[in-house]
């Protein structure tokens, strides 16, 4: 573990009264490596290390702790704070229906997450409507209909037509049929695909979502920053759903995304089944990133 590695580095410096620059730099070398291995963006790691260094150097080593425990403690606190101290809930609209739009790169889990959200909201007593705005991927509409059926949520679709119109009419349909929340599934898209980013923007402008959630794959590497910034610029985002957290990827991409966009994590996906959606815990995530 990181603590073991740092304490290994500190083995020769036991029992000092105050953390010196040398002590801290020794420990931070291990922290830097751990963060890079966890997929935290290179530039974010640099900034993070500098911030921790500032907080750690000259700190009194508490009676009850060893220097390595001190540094790890500072690192964990800093990470946890960056990841978002409190639990973030969905923004609920004062005038129903609440509109939630899912967006992101290809294959990150949007359609599955749409089903999970519908199931979760149903369990909370809501009446969600799923809207099929992916008109490109083979059988994407069928996939959404299938997950909709599995959680007992209605799916609004108009086949392979205009996604902006489907979204608009989906919201109207929700209003007319007493659905208090609408979940819009959109096609996976590259942030460098101008036409598709324009489409996403058009959908968002047409329906004015209360929540625009980026589905981010927990195994995303250094490129997370580019993609998240671009989506945030275009839409903008109100939250992130970190998917495939049941894997063993450390998930450092979320730290980069949070640092760059300031967008909070609303939920995490923890499996392929439609009940596999959970609250995000910044403290657990901090521990996972550090490894």
């Amino acid at each position, binding site marked *: 573990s990181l603590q073991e590695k740092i304490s290994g580095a500190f083995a020769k410096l036991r029992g000092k009264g105050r953390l010196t620059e040398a002590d801290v730099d020794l420990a931070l070398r291990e922290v830097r490596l751990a963060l890079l291995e*966890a997929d935290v963006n290179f530039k974010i790691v640099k900034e993070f290390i500098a911030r921790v260094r500032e907080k750690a150097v000259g700190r009194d080593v508490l009676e009850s702790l060893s220097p390595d425990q001190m540094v790890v403690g500072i690192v964990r606190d800093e990470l946890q704070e960056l990841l978002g101290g409190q639990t973030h809930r969905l923004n609920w609209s004062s005038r129903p229906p609440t509109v939630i739009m899912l967006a992101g790169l290809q294959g*990150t889990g949007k359609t599955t997450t749409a089903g999970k959200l519908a199931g979760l909201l149903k369990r909370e007593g809501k009446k969600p409507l799923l809207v099929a705005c992916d008109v490109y991927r083979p059988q994407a509409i069928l996939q959404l209909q299938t997950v909709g059926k599995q959680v007992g949520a209605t799916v609004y679709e108009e086949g392979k037509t205009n996604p902006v119109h489907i979204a608009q009419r989906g919201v109207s349909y929700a209003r007319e049929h007493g659905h208090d929340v609408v979940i819009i599934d959109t096609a996976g898209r590259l942030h*460098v695909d101008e036409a598709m980013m324009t489409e996403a923007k058009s959908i968002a402008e047409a329906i004015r979502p209360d929540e625009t959630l980026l589905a981010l794959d927990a*195994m995303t590497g*250094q490129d997370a920053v580019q993609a998240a910034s671009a989506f945030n610029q275009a839409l903008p985002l109100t939250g992130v759903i970190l998917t495939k957290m049941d894997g063993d*990827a450390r998930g450092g991409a979320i730290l980069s995304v949070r640092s760059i966009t300031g967008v909070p994590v609303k939920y995490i996906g923890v499996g392929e089944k439609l009940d596999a959606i959970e609250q995000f815990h910044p403290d657990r995530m901090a521990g996972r990133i550090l490894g």
Partner: protein
Amino acid sequence: GLGGRKLDEEFLEELEEGLILSDVSVQTSTSLISDLRDAARRGEARDDESARDWLKRRVVEVLGVETEPMRFNPSGLTVWLFIGVNGVGKTTSIGKLAHRLVEEGHKPLLAAGDTFRAAASEQLAEWARRADVPIVAGQQGADPAAVVFDALQAAKSRGRDVVLVDTAGRLHNKSNLMNELAKITRIIEREVGHPPDESLLVIDATTGQNGLHQAHAFAGTAPLTGLILTKWDGTAKGGIVLTVTKETGVPVKLLGVGEKADEICDFDATEWTETMFS
């Protein structure tokens, strides 16, 4: 000199940073820069420009200068197995290869080995329709090994020469799912008398360091013969494949460069490296 700025530590760090930003592992990046330092000491890279060129050649060397072609069975049915974690592009890659194989005069058959995910068989069936090739699928929840078995039988009896086997995405830390995959490989081996001619691990170019863990784990379910790096039309460089090839010896064979049927191409180490360094 004539080449450019004299090689210094700052430039070496810049090169290392470039590798890490491309998702090459810290270990691989450090090792490559260490090789470069040795080369510089031997006088093989005197300035920034020649150092960069040296590093590019070293990367190409690690990847394997010669592109490894896809393997066909000389005497019987050819079987290509597609495996990998969820959402990386297995099904789409099969769809693209089905098109390519038909263009090359082959008679492929698709095996819908993902019997779990919503609309998985239907998604592959649409690709089969587009390429005008037969597909063997099963009921939702059927044993995937049974579907693969049926597909191999169907290919033999219908005179098809290549079977493309789609499997469900699975996270490699789920032992029951990895066991299921190992069973599929065994069924193939039993039915055609040898392991799949290609066992292809599909890796998403946006994947970070987890890609190496994926490779190690999936290597335990099938004898990996190649990697397919998908979504290379994005901005992610997919540098983790450099680490995977270096650590496992498995070469990248194909590059996914889009969502359309013709958007797959043979991996070219030199071209890929050029792009990585641009």
